[in-house]
């Protein structure tokens, strides 16, 4: 038997390297995530819970219909009633921070993948790899580089939440009818104009689907990230599991499902409405 391939040792050295030489980058990342998360959390705390719940219900009514609005009113009301509003606000702040940072990376990356063959051939296998890894595994490098608390949770979230919107942006732009691009070129559009005025509006519905996926992935990972010290509903579940408090765990679990359904339905509805207003839904045109 040949000697063991030193994967573990290599990983440790890589982490040590990042810790020593890329320290400014790591500190900047921690600073950005902490401020963003703090800002979102402050926002959630700035108004009393009933105001937020009614606000969410109104938004849900507008974008997803009365059924989801009532569901939101009852579901969030239940969370508030059960004394889980603080945990909910923590989870939502983390989800929003993770989603925002993922989209900042994913959408430009998706555009680059669609526009450049080289970027595409480099990124495609990396995205494949990121998506086949079981989500649990992402926690390890996150903790190793960033320690515990908010920053590693957001980092782990990004590793899971970046691939879907990147893919969908690239696919959306790739599916734009080449005749449209040709026509724009014939009228003397610059490359930038073609991207901003032709391709992105036509890819809008795909990008919005990517945003929806990104939010769902963030929520799923933020809950798991309670293992590495991210607070919120996930932490409540983890505590309940370890203390074998059935009721507590199930209530927090119901809370997570309520959030998941609300986020999913509202963003899907909003995406459809915004696509009608700003984008040109290629899928609808073809149908």
């Amino acid at each position, binding site marked *: 038997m040949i000697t063991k391939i030193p*994967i*573990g040792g290599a990983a440790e050295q890589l982490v040590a390297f990042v810790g020593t030489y890329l320290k400014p980058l790591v500190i900047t990342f921690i600073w950005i995530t902490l401020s963003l998360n703090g800002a979102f959390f402050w926002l959630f705390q700035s108004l009393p819970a009933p105001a937020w719940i009614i606000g969410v219900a109104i938004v849900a009514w507008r974008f997803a219909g009365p059924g989801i609005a009532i569901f939101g009113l009852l579901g969030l009301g239940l969370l508030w009633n059960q004394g889980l509003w603080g945990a909910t606000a923590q989870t939502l702040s983390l989800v929003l921070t993770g989603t925002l940072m993922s989209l900042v990376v994913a959408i430009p990356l998706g555009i680059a993948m669609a526009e450049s063959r080289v970027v595409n051939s480099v990124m495609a296998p990396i995205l494949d790899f990121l998506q086949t*890894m079981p989500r*649990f595994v992402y926690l390890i490098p996150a903790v190793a580089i960033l320690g515990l608390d908010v920053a590693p949770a957001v980092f782990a979230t990004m590793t899971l939440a970046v691939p879907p919107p990147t893919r969908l942006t690239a696919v959306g732009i790739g599916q734009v009818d080449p005749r449209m691009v040709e026509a724009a070129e014939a009228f003397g559009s610059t490359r930038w104009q073609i991207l901003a005025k032709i391709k992105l509006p036509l890819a809008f519905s795909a990008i919005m689907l990517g945003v929806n996926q990104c939010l*769902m992935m963030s929520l*799923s990972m933020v809950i798991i990230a309670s*293992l590495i010290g991210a607070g919120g509903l996930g932490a409540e579940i983890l505590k309940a599991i370890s203390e*074998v408090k059935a009721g*507590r765990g199930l209530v927090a679990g119901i809370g997570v499902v309520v959030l998941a359904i609300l986020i999913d339905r509202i963003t899907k509805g909003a995406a459809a409405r915004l696509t009608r207003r700003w984008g040109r839904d290629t899928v609808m045109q073809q149908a």
Partner: protein
Amino acid sequence: MEFPPIPLESWIDAAIAWLVVRGGPIFDVIGKTLSTLELLLRDALRGLPPYVMIPLLVAFPLFKRRFRTAALLLAALLLIWNLELWREAMQTVSLVLIAAGLSLGIAVPLGILAAESRLARSIIEPVLDYMQTTPAFVYLIPAVLFFGVGTVPGILATMAFALPPPIRATSLGIAEVDPQIVEAAVAFGSSRRQLLLKIKLPLALPYIWVGVNQCIMMSLSMVVIASLIGATGLGTRVVEGLSQFDIGKGVEAGVAVVAVAIALDRLFAAGGGKDGSKPAM
């Protein structure tokens, strides 16, 4: 306006206590059966040493003349062996196979039902929507409530988590069968059962295989998470790596999980369509 909190927690606790007392024997039977099955399969998988297992597994795609698949499979298996994680990997695989097997046993009939009956579809569709929006972590809770900590709740949570894709794939596959073929069979006097068994299911098989593959991949991802509630295997090593701040240990276990994922994916792709080709979904 301040409402007193609804005593939901104590209601749930009471309901579960009642269920556990009343349904105790049933839970016992389910638990015993599953843990026995798991033990048998684990021992079987571990019984053969890696230098026997690896050639046996690699022979499967080789036999079908798929050399690239065989090479990838060989590399993945050798990596697991090399990392000295073979025993843990086999335990994870045995959990995955049992959970995915149970899941498919439920999912394929449900998928057929959803394709054949409008009523069933209108019930199953929204349930699947809810299941797929529920984050993985939440599946652990009811499993722990009824079965405590260990491999059995791990298997059950995994089974539930992996249900939706094969149900959808099966029902889609049957729905996509060319209606002209169905008409022709009806014209020749096929009974409904014959139509299903001899026409629809064989034609839906490529889709069902995609469902099987997805079910196995989802099971693997969930089994790793289920190590939190005592489903031992590679996931346990990842959790240990996390809690002991042992980066090397955690990363090695993580890489082994990926190798298991690749190996399972390749093995089941080899069992599926002609060149691992998948229908567009």
